[in-house]
């Protein structure tokens, strides 16, 4: 699903954010990406989103080379990947329903299909009863559920979450993780960058740890610390 081959990223100011990373994530895996701030998690994700290009190395996503991809191929590549952020990034002037529908509008779905698909996914993430509410009327957990619904509505084979529980209390965090795990059970590959020690230790999933830009550890059923 994802493959990083000898990826190095050096920024213009000379900082080496990633140093010769080799990483392979298979289809259907559930992976935590951990490490202290500045370890290179954000850089790794932004390379995956193709916001930036690596200084050296190749990155493959669902068989496509991200480094060699042309600009006009990027939208298609991004459609294979749902994204969830720490700050939810919902549109404040739209309801839950409209926020999720927005993802399909952007992909030029038919109105009829949008009306059919949105309730299904809202039901799946457990937020259907909030469909007509605006983001400011929701709790953090509900906002994140909405964001997850938006990320998965067009069935991307990969879901990437950047600190999805960073703004949530432990109980809500755990609920969100359970939701992500359910999505993973249905076949979606899930990659989560996180600081959250408790969650990583409870879930017993594969853990990839970065330290100072290098791959420090890669364990099946790992924990936050080795």
């Amino acid at each position: 699903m994802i493959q990083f081959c000898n990826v190095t990223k050096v920024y213009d100011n000379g900082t080496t954010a990633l140093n010769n990373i080799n990483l392979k994530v298979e289809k259907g895996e559930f992976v935590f990406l951990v490490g202290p701030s500045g370890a290179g998690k954000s850089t790794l994700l932004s390379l995956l989103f193709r916001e930036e290009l690596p200084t050296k190395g190749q990155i493959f996503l669902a068989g496509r080379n991200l480094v060699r991809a042309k600009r006009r191929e990027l939208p298609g590549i991004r459609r294979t990947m749902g994204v969830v952020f720490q700050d939810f990034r919902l549109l404040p002037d739209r309801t839950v329903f409209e926020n999720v529908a927005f993802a399909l509008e952007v992909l030029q779905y038919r109105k009829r299909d949008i009306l059919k698909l949105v309730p299904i996914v809202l039901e799946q993430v457990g937020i259907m009863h909030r469909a007509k509410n605006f983001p400011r009327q929701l709790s953090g957990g509900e906002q994140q559920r909405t964001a997850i619904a938006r990320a998965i509505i067009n069935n991307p084979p990969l879901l990437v979450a950047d600190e999805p529980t960073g703004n949530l209390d432990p109980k809500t965090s755990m609920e969100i993780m359970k939701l992500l795990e359910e999505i993973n059970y249905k076949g979606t590959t899930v990659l989560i960058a996180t600081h959250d020690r408790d969650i990583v230790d409870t879930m017993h999933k594969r853990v990839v740890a970065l330290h100072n830009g290098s791959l420090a550890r890669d364990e099946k059923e790992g924990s936050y610390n080795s």
Partner: protein
Amino acid sequence: MKPRTILYFFKQAGKSIFRHGWMGTASVLTTAIALLIFGVFVLGMMNINLISGHVESTLEIIVWLQDDADEETVQNVGTYLRNLSQITQVRHVSKEEGLAMLNKEFGSGYDLLWTLGGENPLPDFYVVKVNNPELVRAIAQRIANLPPVEKVDYGQDYLDKVLSLLYWIRMVGLGAVGLLAAASVFLIGNTVRLTVYARSNEISIMKYLGATNWFVRWPFLIEGMFLGTIGSFIAATFLYFGYNVLIQHLAPAISFVPLIQDKELLMQISGMLVVAGALLGGLASFISLGRYLRF
């Protein structure tokens, strides 16, 4: 592109036009003023070109013969001039006719010949018209080289002055138009940038969701083109009716000067202004968006 997508673009554009009404108004007015001045300048130039063409076509060469040239020499020069293919009209003015003309200018009851002691000091001369104003100088010089010709006069000094005046009017006008066009691109660009900024969050989400750049761009392009079109439409309306009114009042007063009165041409110029406005607006949006669509 699917119809519902196009509809979506127009809806988005409409929303943001309403949301930033005052900025929009400011950029519409700037565009209107810039394009109005541009239109006035274009019409002015066309009229000046018409007038100067008219002046050039009436240019004459006056060929003064030697004072002591005899009858036969005068005839020979006349034949020579008539045989030049570029010359369309030759008129001979004899010593006597010249004196009579001069006398007339002094007024009746005044005998110029008597004043001059009974001797006519005027030479014979020819008035020559050339078919191509650009050849006036060359032909005049050729005629000046004939032995019996004392000198030639043609409106070259006058023509040079008019030409250099036209040159400066063009330069100043072009500079002004360039600055104003830049100002309207800047202002429309700023208006659109406000919208873009207000929606930068939405744009980045759209990018993450896999929207194409054109999908993001179209609503903003429509907004910019709409603002530009409204501005230029105002300019074109003022230009069209303003010019018509001006011509109606001015043309009878200066009937000796030819002016452009072709309504269809005027309509075309107005139409071109509107197209220019739409393009300026679109360009402004395109430039303002650049930064947000890079990744």
